[in-house]
């Protein structure tokens, strides 16, 4: 078998290592970092404004109609984002559409909800053991309980963290409460925000075996379980809980078919958000809320989209613009000729290291052609017999420059074998 000949195995291995290392080294030497574009809806200007990075220290601040401004002007166009600077500069309170806001109201009424690809449950590893915080701690700060829970096939099982043993009492109480509310074991998704670095605790949203969503909290040490009216056939992929003082929304809910909803405090109503062009596996979704309007912003390396909405989430304006990126820079163009493809092993858009193959289209194919011609020239110069060359041809066709380098690093075969 071809792949088992030592020479071929060695050459293939060298080729693979080069396919990862060479582009990484190339980027390290020649690469340019470009920050993603920041896009907002300005309640002052009634237009989208953005900050765009063109490499090095070249930032552009402008609005969607092409008017440019300096950084400070830019920040004053989005006062709910930069309210602290505004305050410092003495520009607060500010009156917009007849409403007046000072720094404190701005702080308390603005909210940012975000869902990044790497946060989605199936895109990152998680240890399925969670602390259930006391929602009524009776003190200023939240604190961790001395137990954690895990969802087993038929129970919400609590474990004492000091002894690493099951707390049967707590387990029974919470399991019974869940069962009483109609929870069907085993649980699907467990969604919460297990940290004490938040103003309050809203416990966990549990999706049961039938697809129903339950809300579980620990209040004064006792279970509080609500079976929510969220439809069971929604196909829930992820729930991101993010507690805020305003107590308007529990968080975001993402479905398998990439619909995104806000979950309201008011009867667990679902508010649909604009998702046209949104791909949850590649794009971070940002929802900026202020008393004037809501803005959804999402995008990838190529394009950024924004949708401006009223406070009741009715879209009234949209804008999208290409992200400058690095694709057109000389080093990136040259790379597309040099390398037939790039193999990445990184945590791209998730918490797992994944193998990614970026193909370089027709330039990559042309690069393979050049590598092939180089190989033939070298072998002709070495006067190698043609018959012995086909494994090398396979490598160069498969690996372009990487295959060529691997072939050149390979020790020459002696005449006899």
């Amino acid at each position, binding site marked *: 078998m071809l792949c088992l000949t030592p020479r071929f195995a060695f050459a293939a*291995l060298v080729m693979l290592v080069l396919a*990862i290392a060479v582009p990484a080294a190339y980027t390290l030497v020649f690469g340019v970092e470009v920050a993603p574009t920041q896009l907002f809806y300005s309640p002052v200007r009634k237009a989208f404004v953005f900050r765009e990075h063109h490499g090095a220290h070249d930032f552009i601040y402008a609005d969607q109609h092409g008017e440019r401004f300096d950084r400070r002007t830019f920040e004053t166009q989005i006062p709910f984002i930069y309210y602290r600077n505004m305050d410092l500069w003495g520009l607060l309170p500010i009156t917009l559409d007849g409403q007046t806001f000072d720094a404190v109201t701005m702080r308390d009424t603005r909210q940012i909800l975000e869902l990044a690809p790497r946060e989605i449950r199936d895109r990152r590893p998680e240890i399925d053991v969670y602390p259930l915080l006391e929602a009524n701690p009776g003190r200023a700060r939240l604190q961790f309980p001395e137990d954690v829970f895990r969802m087993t096939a038929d129970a919400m099982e609590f474990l004492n963290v000091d002894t690493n043993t099951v707390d049967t009492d707590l387990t029974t109480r919470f399991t019974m409460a869940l069962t009483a509310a109609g929870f069907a074991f085993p649980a699907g998704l467990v969604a919460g925000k297990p940290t004490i670095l938040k103003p309050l605790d809203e416990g966990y949203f549990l999706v049961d075996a039938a697809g129903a969503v339950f809300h579980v909290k620990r209040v004064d040490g006792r279970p509080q379980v609500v079976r929510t009216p969220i439809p069971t056939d929604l196909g829930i992929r992820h729930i991101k809980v993010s507690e805020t003082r305003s107590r308007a929304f529990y968080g975001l809910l993402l479905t398998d078919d990439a619909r995104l909803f806000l979950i309201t405090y008011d009867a667990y109503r679902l508010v649909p958000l604009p998702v046209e062009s949104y791909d949850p596996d590649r794009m971070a979704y940002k929802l900026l809320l202020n008393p004037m309007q809501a803005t959804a912003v999402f995008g990838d390396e190529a394009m950024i989209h924004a949708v401006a909405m009223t406070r009741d989430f009715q879209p009234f304006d949209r804008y999208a613009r290409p992200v400058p990126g690095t694709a057109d820079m000389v080093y990136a163009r040259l790379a597309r000729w040099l390398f037939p493809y790039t193999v990445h092993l990184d945590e791209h858009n998730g918490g797992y*290291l994944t193998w990614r193959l970026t193909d370089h289209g027709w330039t990559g194919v042309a690069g393979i052609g050049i590598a092939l011609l180089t190989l033939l020239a070298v072998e002709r110069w070495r006067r190698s017999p043609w018959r012995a060359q086909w494994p090398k041809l396979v490598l160069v066709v498969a690996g372009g420059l990487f295959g060529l380098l691997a072939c050149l690093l390979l020790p020459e075969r002696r005449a006899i074998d």
Partner: protein
Amino acid sequence: MTALFFKEWIKLRLIWGLILAGNAAFCLYLFLDMRQQFRIEHAEMLYYQASRIGRLFYADLQYVPALTGAALAVAQFAPEMAKGRLRLSMHLPISLDGLILIHLTIGLIGLGVILAFDLAALAATVGTFFPGAFVHSALATAAPWMLAGVAAYLGGVLVLLEPCRPLQVVNLAVAGGLVTLCHLSTRFNGADHALPGLALMVGLLLPAVLLPARRFRDGGR
């Protein structure tokens, strides 16, 4: 074949025992260190750090398998390469590839026992203080490190057998590259999806090792 096991056993038993003892001492340190953490900090905070912040209490373990693999490769093949002693075995009535593969099998068994010990000690340590989910996570997190041990062993052999100095450097770079790839993830379970591809690359080392062996037999040309 059993004779080769006999030879390797005589050659390696002392150093293998020392390496195993070193690993055992390290595992004991890991256990005591974790126990100490649980003495000075609240367990619930440690749970939080381990599961949410992504702190790896056993991160010190990550380069131990690679060092073990490299040490075993040196212990096994340095005496063979000194004065070209491997020629003694190469003249034995057995094929060259068979000879090398048996040596590698023996080395990999020796390595496997030590790495299995490390994993068992890791599971026991984590399992003492944390529930099962943490144990599973720790084992999965340590899996690419164990693979790095195999890569370091086979890569070490690849380097040691090669008779030509510049090619030794190439082989060292390939082995170093593979070991580095196995250590890319710094999170728990981070390499879960990368593992099959990594294993495939490390697996390629096995036939690749026969190349320098043949070149050594053929006088390094």
